[in-house]
């Protein structure tokens, strides 16, 4: 289902990765990255200690909150900013989380995380459960505690209204004018698996990061996409927003949304199961699902539930429940807001998120410059044994992507700390990890800039300084580094601008900064253009003054050199 984007490039949200024709480079990079992440994950698993086993439920009760993880960017009907008050969350999973929390006797506390990283965030211990349209798979069941299903989903094929060349699944398997038909899906979801399995290689895939992006691209026929295979609840929720799409055939590919817990937290899992089961039996789940138009016949097909003593409880719609369930309150579905209204409503949230972007940048950059200077000095003037590691540091950091570094720091470092210093209780929160990652990543570039700057100071300066009796360290501090700093200031300000934009990557480790907030708000409001422009404007407002500073510095420097 909701598979959110690791969207580091800002505003083009419809990023299409077509295959099989030509494997695009970005795909290749992605795969490498995925592989690396998998390797890290494995390491994390291996390092995982089985301690703290059943104490989680006690800890939750003591804390008074059940921390549940989801990604708002996935949008409706799962978890999304409320349209009349975007500072508040709504969605059927929000209500479900509250229901589970209430059963345990605590309050539900939401934690934002990138969808595909949620299980890792849970492994890290930052959240107690994942509740975000995760499908049950045998692999997941092996790796995590998987609750009984809270929803039976199906996939709906969507075509364009009036497209007579595509009216059935059969049409989809037949090439049109010698060209295989193309279906958009969310990458890494059951929909993709389904097409790969059922398409018998005759259907082409276009992978997307966001559900609404996929629908939009299909509606517009971008990249000659013919159809979209969508989670049924997503379609029913958003159907008003996509009036040029129509369902084709009946839903296919049934599967189960389950809550995830850590494998060891069996008590917690039991409590989650009890809560869901109770909600099934007393009809409150029916009510929640109905509110989001998710209720359908398929939900009645259940009968797998057991009661506390392990007995079959039958279809969870008890006699009184069958028939039209009265829905208290309003039904919720996609409400598109646009124009000035959406800017007015959600602009404040974007500005707040821009504050996070600024905070990340202004904390990380000075650190990057300091580390960079230390590395540059080690390489140029350090003792022999230090020069090689310093050079390695630069190559290693420059040679690996920022998102991988962030991932390592956030997910692996705490495990390492825990293994090396057991019981120290040292943890790294997401903000610290983000600042560390950015600082380390940029330090390699700043080190090279500084090295160039220092090397371009005439040799005579160091000779004059040491001839006056200064030690090398003093000469560096008083004579060389101050001069080099003036030289490197313009390129470093440039890097600062780049870092501003790179903060967007931090959303992979749950930090919500400007571009993540944009994706969340734009998708839930369907205002890609308006909020996109506002977001661009905010980025500009932050980086343009820096550009001016760079120009100014460069001008001063060239004047100084001329005289």
């Amino acid at each position, binding site marked *: 289902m909701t598979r959110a984007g690791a969207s580091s490039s800002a505003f083009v949200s419809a990023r299409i990765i077509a295959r099989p024709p030509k494997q695009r480079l970005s795909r290749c990079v992605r795969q490498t990255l995925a592989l690396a992440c998998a390797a890290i994950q494995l390491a994390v698993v291996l390092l995982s200690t089985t301690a703290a086993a059943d104490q989680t439920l006690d800890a939750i009760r003591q804390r008074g909150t059940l921390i549940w993880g989801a990604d708002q960017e996935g949008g409706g009907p799962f978890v999304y900013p409320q349209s009349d008050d975007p500072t508040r969350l709504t969605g059927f999973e929000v209500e479900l989380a509250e229901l589970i929390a209430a059963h345990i006797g605590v309050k539900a506390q939401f934690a934002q995380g990138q969808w595909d990283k949620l299980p890792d965030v849970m492994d890290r211990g930052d959240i107690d459960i994942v509740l975000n349209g995760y499908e049950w798979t045998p692999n997941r069941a092996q790796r995590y505690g998987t609750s009984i299903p809270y929803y039976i989903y199906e996939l709906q094929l969507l075509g364009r209204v009036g497209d007579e060349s595509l009216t059935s699944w059969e049409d989809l398997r037949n090439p049109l004018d010698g060209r295989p038909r193309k279906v958009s899906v969310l990458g890494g979801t059951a929909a993709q698996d389904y097409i790969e399995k059922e398409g018998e290689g005759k259907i082409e895939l276009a992978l997307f990061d966001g559900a609404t992006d996929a629908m939009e691209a299909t509606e517009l026929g971008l990249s000659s996409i013919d159809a979209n295979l969508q989670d049924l609840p997503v379609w029913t929720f958003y159907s008003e927003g996509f009036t040029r799409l129509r369902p084709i055939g009946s839903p296919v590919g049934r599967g189960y949304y389950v809550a995830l817990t850590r494998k060891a937290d069996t008590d917690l899992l039991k409590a989650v199961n009890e809560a869901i089961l109770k909600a099934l039996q007393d009809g409150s789940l029916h009510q929640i699902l109905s509110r989001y138009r998710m209720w359908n016949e398929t939900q009645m097909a259940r009968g797998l539930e057991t009661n506390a003593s392990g007995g079959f409880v039958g279809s969870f719609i008890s006699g009184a429940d069958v028939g039209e369930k009265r829905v208290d309150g309003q039904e919720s579905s996609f409400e598109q807001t646009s124009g000035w209204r959406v800017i007015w409503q959600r602009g404040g949230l974007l500005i707040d998120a821009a504050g996070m972007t600024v905070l990340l940048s202004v904390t990380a950059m000075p650190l990057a410059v300091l580390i960079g200077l230390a590395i540059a000095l080690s390489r140029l003037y350090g003792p022999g044994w230090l020069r090689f590691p310093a050079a390695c540091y630069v190559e290693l950091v420059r040679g690996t992507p920022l998102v991988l570094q962030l991932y390592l720091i956030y997910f692996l470092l705490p495990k390492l700390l825990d293994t090396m210093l057991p019981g120290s209780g040292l943890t790294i929160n997401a903000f610290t990890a983000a600042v560390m990652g950015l600082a380390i990543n940029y330090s390699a570039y700043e080190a090279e800039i500084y090295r160039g700057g220092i090397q371009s100071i005439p040799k005579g300066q160091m*000779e*004059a*300084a*040491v001839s*006056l009796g*200064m*030690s090398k360290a003093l000469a560096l501090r008083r004579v060389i580094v101050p001069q080099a700093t003036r030289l490197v200031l313009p390129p470093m300000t440039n890097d600062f601008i780049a870092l501003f934009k790179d903060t967007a990557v931090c959303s992979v480790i749950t930090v919500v900064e400007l571009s993540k907030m944009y994706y969340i708000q734009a998708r839930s409001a369907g205002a890609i253009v308006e909020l996109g422009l506002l977001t661009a404007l905010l980025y500009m407002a932050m980086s343009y003054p820096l550009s001016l500073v760079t120009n100014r510095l460069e001008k001063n420097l060239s004047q100084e050199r001329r005289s």
Partner: protein
Amino acid sequence: MIELTKIVKRYQEHEVLRGVSLTVDDGEVCVLLGPSGGGKSTLLRTINGLETFDSGKIRVGDVTLPATPGPERDKSLAIIRQRVGMVFQQFNLFPHRTVLQNVTEAPIHVLKQPRDVAVATARRLLERVGMLEKQDARPGSLSGGQQQRVAIARTLAMSPEAILFDEPTSALDPRTTAEVISVMTDLAAAGQRMIVVTHAMSFARTVAHQVHILHAGTIAESGPPLQIFEAPQTDITRSFLSEAAIA
């Protein structure tokens, strides 16, 4: 007293100094002459450790400078560099500091003088080299001759026992050369010991106590200026002087 004994310096295969021995007494003005590439700069720079050397012995007062890098050499250098200053052909003033700050930099940060003491001394020295009006200027805005005079003041601020001059006027035009030579002449008259590499023959002739002709890494002839200029003993000196006269 500065004493060099059989200094040998090689750049890979190329032997630049081939056993140079030289003594400079207290208060002595010593001038090194010789054709380009003869090793004058190299010799000067081995004395304050800007170059290492391969064998021989350098002694400054009671401190001996080991030939090769290491903590021993660093320790000796720290002392020698406070006793022996250097003035460069390209001045090498610190462009990011004012004239006054250039002069006070080392006294404050190396000798740990109180700032007001260092500033007072610096003003006196700038006065002495005729640069006090420019104390707040940046080196970049000064002429070459002015910069070199500031560089001399900067060196003097460390009260060195000896000053090494490496072609201090070669980058200057004749008028500003005269300014700098006059400052150096005043210093010599005040008893400042110095070793000067220069092409300014008049300075060698009138101010030097000892003149050494360095040719191809060896000293071809040493003596008071009267001997070197009026009665040269070797062909090398004679041919160097006649070439210098043409130039």
